Structure formats: C-alpha cells, structure tokens
C-alpha cells in the first residue's frame, strides 16, 4: 500500500476484555515496529519484527501483550485482560531492512473503560 495502515483507528473496550490491533505495513518493508504513546509522552518501543520473527520484544510491558506477523507482512498486536493503564495510542511503523527512518501509521487510539 501507499502507507502504513492501522485498524481500527479508535477502539473502546471494557476492562478485562481482549483486543487486537492490526497493522498493514508498506509493501516490501521487512522491518515492522510497534510503539505505544501514552498521554503527554513520546512513543515508547514495544516490539520489532524482521520478517516473520520478533527480533526484539523487550518493550512489551508484560505477558498480556503479544504480537504476531505470520506471513511477514500484516502484524497484529494482541492485548489480553485489558487494564485502564493500557489506554494509549498504539503506533505501528515499517521500514526497509537497515533503513533508519521509519514510516509511521496513524495509530490506533485504545481506550479501556
């Protein structure tokens, strides 16, 4: 696609529910990243995929968070048993391998009520 696409753009869920956030990167971009941006903060790294594998998941806050990229393209960030503290904008970005500038998506604003 022309850019990084994230769906949904907004998601409101109840505490304790499971959510999935989708990211469709730029075609041909092998590197994919997830960041989380809480209110008043800069984006914080969550996970990095190179191809299908998670090369670095050190930013995932706990085991309620999981991400997959089964075919090396679309990625899904999964959050189990959501908590109010998970409310944030979740940003996805992609890049060519070795490139240092990312292309970011518009983000998914997650609100846990």
């Amino acid at each position, binding site marked *: 696609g022309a*850019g*990084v696409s994230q769906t949904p753009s907004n998601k409101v869920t109840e505490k304790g529910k499971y959510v999935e956030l989708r990211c469709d990167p730029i075609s041909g971009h092998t*590197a994919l*990243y997830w*960041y989380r941006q809480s209110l*008043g*903060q*800069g*984006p*914080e*790294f969550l996970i*990095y995929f190179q191809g299908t594998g998670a*090369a*670095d998941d050190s*930013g995932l806050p706990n085991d309620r968070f999981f991400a997959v990229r089964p075919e090396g393209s679309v990625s899904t960030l999964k959050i189990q048993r959501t908590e109010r503290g998970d409310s944030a904008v979740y*940003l996805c970005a992609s890049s060519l391998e070795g490139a*240092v*500038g*990312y292309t*970011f*998506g*518009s*983000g998914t604003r997650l609100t846990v009520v």
Partner: protein
Amino acid sequence: AQRVTQPEKLLSVFKGAPVELKCNYSYSGSPELFWYVQYSRQRLQLLLRHISRESIKGFTADLNKGETSFHLKKPFAQEEDSAMYYCALLRTYKYIFGTGTRLKVLA
C-alpha cells in the same frame, strides 16, 4: 541510562520570530539523533537526522557532543510550522523519544 529530554512542553512564538526547540540526550556511545514532527491530524513523520546535516523546511539541528544537545532551529517561524516536535535517539533499530514540544506560531 539512555534518555532524551525535551524541557519545554509548549513553545509559543510569533510568526517571523526565531525558533529553538531544545533537546538534550544521555548516551554513552556515538549518538544518532533525529527530529520527528506531527502536524495536526497527521501521522508522525521524519523531519531531519543529524548525520545528513540538511535543512528541511528551513529547520536545522546541530549535534553538540560537549553539551549533549541537538536543538532544532529555524530563523523565521511560519504559521504552518505549528506542530508537535519529538527529538529521538536511535539505538540500532529502535528509537528513544523525548516527551515532545508543542510549537505554536502565532499570527
């Protein structure tokens, strides 16, 4: 610890006035620093990186290793420069972002 600090949450200047958005970093190695910008209702996008030493939209940023700073400057602000600006440090493939500075350029 590696850290990026942007001390100003909000900076307001009049159109035509000079702009300086401050960024300080903490990093033990040789840093790679960037400025990202987010205009209203748009996605985060790369503005410039220190290695390229370029000027984008009239903005420049010089890496000062002695002061561990990477301030973003523009001699004459324009209304269209109003946006959120993030300074970021690249560690291999992942960024450490500052908390951002909102720039408001007043007519």
